């Protein structure tokens, strides 16, 4: 039997008169990467905030890691972590202090050691003792995600983890996500980039107009459309490929 760590049925949520979620059904298997695709304002963040116990739902059932959201929010908070759309880091503290703080708040036994390990894993030893306020956008995102990994939560919510990052930093975040998934963590991420869902996700759901209009693997989604016609076209390099090639070149020299 397949174990669903996230099971959402008929989820509804309105803000005053605006109905954002109109009966959403989502299932996420343990250890998989699940991507929720949708345009700006489609309700992706609303879904994440409900699952992370930050926002109350109007109707429907939400079960995370076997716990019902209305009955055991504390247990759910124990099994998840959230990386929001904007890096939620204390900018006056250093990177190391931020990690130690989260480790202490997760009531881990040796917070300093946990912080040191994450700093090594994310190769941030140079920046670790500088204030986060001095970090670049990519660095902030990295420490933000590292903070989410403290205490090895079973499910990680990433709300648009690569929005606003340069291509290099984006690849780096992708790599982290793939490593986490390989280690057995369930990842629920939202994105507006089709390419990101294509690269990362085991399963993709498309949220449109308050409902999930498709939910399947990439292969399954492709089958929804007529088979591709074979045409011969000269492949143009994308600007991103060129950019990354030049950067690589420079670093080798």
């Amino acid at each position, binding site marked *: 039997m397949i174990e669903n760590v996230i099971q959402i049925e008929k989820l509804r949520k309105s803000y005053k008169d605006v109905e954002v979620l109109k009966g959403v059904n989502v299932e996420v298997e343990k250890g998989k990467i699940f991507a929720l695709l949708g345009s700006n304002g489609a309700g992706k963040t609303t879904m994440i905030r409900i699952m992370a*116990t930050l926002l109350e739902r109007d109707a429907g059932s939400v079960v995370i890691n076997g716990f019902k959201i209305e009955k055991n929010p504390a247990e759910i908070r124990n099994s998840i*972590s*959230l990386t929001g759309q904007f*890096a*939620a880091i204390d900018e*006056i*503290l250093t990177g190391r202090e931020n990690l130690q703080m989260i480790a202490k708040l997760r009531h881990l036994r040796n917070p300093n050691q946990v912080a040191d390990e994450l700093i090594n894993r994310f190769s941030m030893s140079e920046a670790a003792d500088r204030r986060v306020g001095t970090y670049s956008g990519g660095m902030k995102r990295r420490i933000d995600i590292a903070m989410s990994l403290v205490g090895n939560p079973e499910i990680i919510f990433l709300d648009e983890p690569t929005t606003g990052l340069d291509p290099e930093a984006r690849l780096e975040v992708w790599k982290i996500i793939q490593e986490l998934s390989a280690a057995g963590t369930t990842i629920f991420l939202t994105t507006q980039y089709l390419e990101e869902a294509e690269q990362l996700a085991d399963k993709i759901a498309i949220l449109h107009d308050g409902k999930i209009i498709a939910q399947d693997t990439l292969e399954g989604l492709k089958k929804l459309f007529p088979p591709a016609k074979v045409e011969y076209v000269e492949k143009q390099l994308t600007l991103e490929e060129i950019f990354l090639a030049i950067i690589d070149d420079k670093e080798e020299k």
Partner: protein
Amino acid sequence: MESINKYFFKDMSVMFGRSMRHIFRSMDTIVTVCITPIAMMLLFVYVFGGAIETGTENYIDYLLPGVMLMTIGSGIAYVAYRLFLDKQRGIFERFHSMPIARSTILWGHVLTSLISNVISVVVIILVALLIGFRSSAGILEWLAVFGILGIFILALTWIAVIAGLSAKTPDGAGAFSYPIIFLPFISSAFVPTDTMPSVVRAFAENQPVTPIVEAIRNLLSNQPVGNEIWIALTWCIAIIVVAYIFAIRIYKKL
């Protein structure tokens, strides 16, 4: 709930440690908080003081309690500002999605406000000593003075929590403190109320700053403290209760 309450003090110490680090890493905020009250003190002692009849020998002794309250008034603007930043940067959200005792997030800020404002007041007292302030008060009187100031800080801090949590811009978060900073001017903090026109005088004598200032002034000059200390405490506690209820209501809606 129990499993969470077990960690209340541990979580509290993390929250408190965090915001105290903010204070010690930005000592300039303490300087900024103290500079206007110090300027006021110098201005009133060396420029206006000679012309003001207070019935006390040493004008600085008369003036100091009011300046202490002004200092606290400008100090709490930063409390609102720090809360606003935590809300805006998503730090509250991060904490709320974690298994921690929620109330500690606010109490960490409140405790930090208490400590940082006491530091500012101590700075003001030291400057006052340099320019001639002298007190005949003993240990007990000083403890009573800091007790009153502590309760006053808590009252203003809970107002600051409301302002910080409901503000839309960083400037808006601190704006509530301006009227509070100027409240001492329309009280007996700088001059006795006897010479004020009747309407102003009625306001001055019935607003919270006057009884607080007079209670502290009497304690510092070792005079018997009358009713005003109870009026002062009633004002502060009433403000704490009302502001706390509103602050918690806003906080729960976040």
